[in-house]
C-alpha cells in the first residue's frame, strides 16, 4: 500500500523541482489535447515554446514581445505573492489593473494638450493610487467587517470592467475619434507615452518597474521584519498573533501593495503596448498573474522566471493560432492545466510517498 507521510519540513529539492516537472507534464497533457483537436502535438509545442525565441522568421518580432508581456504579469504577481504567502487571497488584480490604467489615463488626459516632462510621472503616481484605492475596498471591508476578501475583490473586477466600458464610451472617449469608442492614443502623445527605452528589446518603464519590484520583494521577504511577519502569518496565524504581528495592518499592506503594483502595470500598459483606454483593455493579465505567482512558488526570482514562461505561452499561442489554426482558448486551457498539475504535485513538497506493508488490524 502506498501512503503519504507528512514531512517535518517542506522539501527544498521538490520545491524547485515541481514547477519544472509541472511544465513538462503540462506539455505532455497539452500535446494530448492538441492531438485530440487534430493538430500535430510536436509542431504545436515547438511553435509555442521554441519558435517565438529561436525561429529566424519570427524571433525578431517575438523576442521583444516577451518582456512586454512578462512585465505586467511579473508586477502583478509580485504583489499577489505577498498576500498569498500570508493567506490573504486577493484575486481581483484584474480590477486593480484596470483602475490603475483608468486613473492614470484620466489624470494625463486632463492636462491634454499640455506638453511637460512632469505629466508622465504624475500619471504613474495616479495609476499606482488608482490600483491602491481599488484594493483598499476589500482590504478595509476585511479589516473593519471581516468581509471575505476573495469575493469582494473578485466582484470589483466586474465593476471595474463596467467603469472601463463607460470610460471608453463616454467620459474618456477621444473627442476627435469620429465617434469610435476608446480614448486618445496615449502612446502617441509625447508627454504621456511609455516608449521602448532600448530599441529592439521591448524594454519600457513597466519592464524596469517589474525588475525593481522583484528586487524589492526579495529584500522585503528575506531581510526585512515585515517579510518575516508575512511568512509567519501564512504558516501559523496563531503564532503570528502571539508574536505581536498586527494582522489587520498586514492585510492593508499586502492588498495595498498588490493594488499599487497592479495599478502600475495597468498604467504602463495603457501608455505603452495597449496605447489607449478601450473596452477590451482588460486582457486577463490579472488572472494569469495568479498562475505566475504560484508557478514561481511565491518567490520573487521564481515569479520572474514564471512570468517570462507565461508570457512565452501568450506569444507562442498567438503564433500557433496564426500558423496552425490553434484556437486561442486552447492556450487558456493550457495555462489552467499548468496551475493544476503544479498544485497536484505540491504533495511531494509537503509529503513523502511511502510504501508500507498493510498492517494487521
Amino acid at each position, binding site marked *: 500500500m502506498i501512503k503519504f507521510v507528512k514531512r517535518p519540513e517542506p522539501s527544498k529539492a521538490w520545491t524547485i523541482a515541481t514547477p519544472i516537472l509541472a511544465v513538462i507534464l503540462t506539455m505532455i497533457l497539452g500535446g494530448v489535447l492538441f492531438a485530440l483537436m487534430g493538430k500535430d502535438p510536436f509542431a504545436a509545442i515547438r511553435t509555442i515554446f521554441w519558435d517565438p525565441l529561436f525561429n529566424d522568421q519570427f524571433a525578431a518580432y517575438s523576442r521583444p514581445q516577451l518582456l512586454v508581456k512578462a512585465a505586467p504579469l511579473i508586477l502583478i504577481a509580485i504583489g499577489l505573492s505577498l498576500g498569498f504567502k500570508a493567506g490573504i487571497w486577493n484575486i481581483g488584480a484584474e480590477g486593480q489593473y484596470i483602475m490603475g490604467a483608468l486613473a492614470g489615463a484620466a489624470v494625463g488626459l486632463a492636462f491634454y494638450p499640455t506638453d511637460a516632462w512632469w505629466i508622465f510621472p504624475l500619471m504613474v503616481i495616479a495609476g499606482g493610487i488608482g490600483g491602491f484605492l481599488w484594493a483598499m475596498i476589500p482590504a478595509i471591508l476585511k479589516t473593519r467587517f471581516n468581509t471575505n476578501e476573495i469575493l469582494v475583490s473578485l466582484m470589483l473586477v466586474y465593476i471595474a470592467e463596467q467603469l472601463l466600458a463607460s470610460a471608453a464610451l463616454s467620459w474618456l472617449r477621444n473627442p476627435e475619434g469620429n465617434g469610435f469608442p476608446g480614448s486618445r492614443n496615449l502612446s502617441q502623445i509625447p508627454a504621456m507615452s511609455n516608449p521602448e527605452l532600448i530599441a529592439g528589446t521591448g524594454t519600457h518603464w513597466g519592464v524596469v518597474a517589474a525588475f525593481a519590484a522583484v528586487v524589492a520583494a526579495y529584500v522585503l521577504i528575506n531581510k526585512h521584519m515585515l517579510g518575516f511577519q508575512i511568512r509567519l502569518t501564512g504558516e501559523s496565524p496563531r503564532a503570528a498573533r502571539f508574536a505581536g504581528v498586527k494582522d489587520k495592518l498586514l492585510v492593508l499592506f499586502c492588498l495595498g501593495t498588490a493594488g499599487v503594483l497592479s495599478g502600475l502595470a495597468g498604467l504602463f500598459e495603457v501608455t505603452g503596448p495597449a496605447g489607449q483606454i478601450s473596452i477590451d483593455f482588460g486582457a486577463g493579465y490579472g488572472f494569469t498573474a495568479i498562475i505566475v505567482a504560484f508557478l514561481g512558488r511565491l518567490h520573487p526570482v521564481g515569479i520572474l522566471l514564471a512570468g517570462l514562461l507565461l508570457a512565452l505561452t501568450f506569444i507562442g499561442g498567438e503564433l500557433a493560432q496564426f500558423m496552425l489554426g490553434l484556437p486561442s482558448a486552447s492556450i487558456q486551457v493550457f495555462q489552467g492545466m499548468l*496551475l493544476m498539475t503544479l498544485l497536484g504535485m505540491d504533495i511531494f513538497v509537503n509529503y513523502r510517498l511511502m510504501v508500507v506493508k498493510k498492517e494487521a488490524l
Partner: protein
Amino acid sequence: MDFGSINPVVLLASLMVASTPILLAALGEMVVEKSGVLNLGVEGMMITGAVCGFIVAVESGSPTLGFIAAALGGMALSMVFALLTQVFLTTQVPAGLALTLMGVGLASLLGQNYQGLKPPPVTDLNIPGLDHIPVIGPILFQHDMIVYVSLLSIAGVWAFLKYSRAGLILRAVGENHSAAHALGYPVRMVRIVAIGFGGAMAGLGGAYISLIRVPQWTDGITAGYGWIALAIVVFASWKAWRILIGAYLFGGITVLQLNLQAAGAKVPVELLSMSPFLATIVVLVVISARRHGASNAPAMLGRIFHASH
C-alpha cells in the same frame, strides 16, 4: 423614461427564470461547503455545464439530454478538483481558482463551432388548474421543468441535511473531520460525493443559462454568476431556504436592471450592469458585519484533511 412598459407580472415571472441558475449553483456549493470543502471553481463548472448542455442539446435535439450532459460535464470537472484536494491534498483556494481558469478556457474551446446556433426550445410545463389563476398563475405556474426542479431540490437538500442520517454524517464531516474520521466515517468519500453533487448542480445552472435564459452559446456566457452563487452561500448562512431568498433577491436585481435598461432609464447602462455585483458586496458586508454572521460557517471549511493513521 417609461416605467409603464414594465409589466410587474412579467417581471416577477422572469425573476424566477433569472434566479434559477444562481439558485442551482449556490445550492450545490452549499452542500460542498457543508462538508467542509470550499470550491471556488463554481464559475468554471457552470460554464462547462453551459457548453456541454448546449452542444448535446443542439446535436440531439433534446434539451433533456442537454441538461443531463450539463450535470455530467460539471461533475466531471468537479472530479478534477476532488482529485486535487482530496487525493493530492492541495490547498482548496488555488485549486478552485485553477478550476475556474481551466473551465472557462475549456468551455470556449469546446463551444467555438456552436456560436450563433439556436438550441431546441424548452416547452413550459404549465401546471394544470393552477396556471390560469390571474397574476399568480403566470408568475408561479407557467415555467419550464427546471424551475420546478430547482425549487424541489431546495426542499430536498433541506430535508436531507436536517433529517437523514447521511446528511448528519455530511455535516459532521464539515464540522469536525478528525472526530468524524475517528468514528469511522469515510471523510474523503463523503467530500468527493459532495463535490460531485456541487459540480452537477453548477453544470445544470450553467445549462439553464445557455439553453433557456439566453438561449444561445457565447464565450463567457455565465458572466460572474458562479461567483455570485458563492456569495449567496455566505449570504444564506449555509441554510437551504435562505439560498432561495438570496437567489431570488439577485435574480430580482438582475431582471430589474435589465428592464430599466430596456425602458431607457436615465441611469448609465454601465451602472445598471454593475448593480448585481455592487449589491453582492453590500450584502456580504451586511452579513459579515453582524456579530455572529460568519459563525454559522462549517468549522472545517477550507481545511485539509489528512488521516495520519
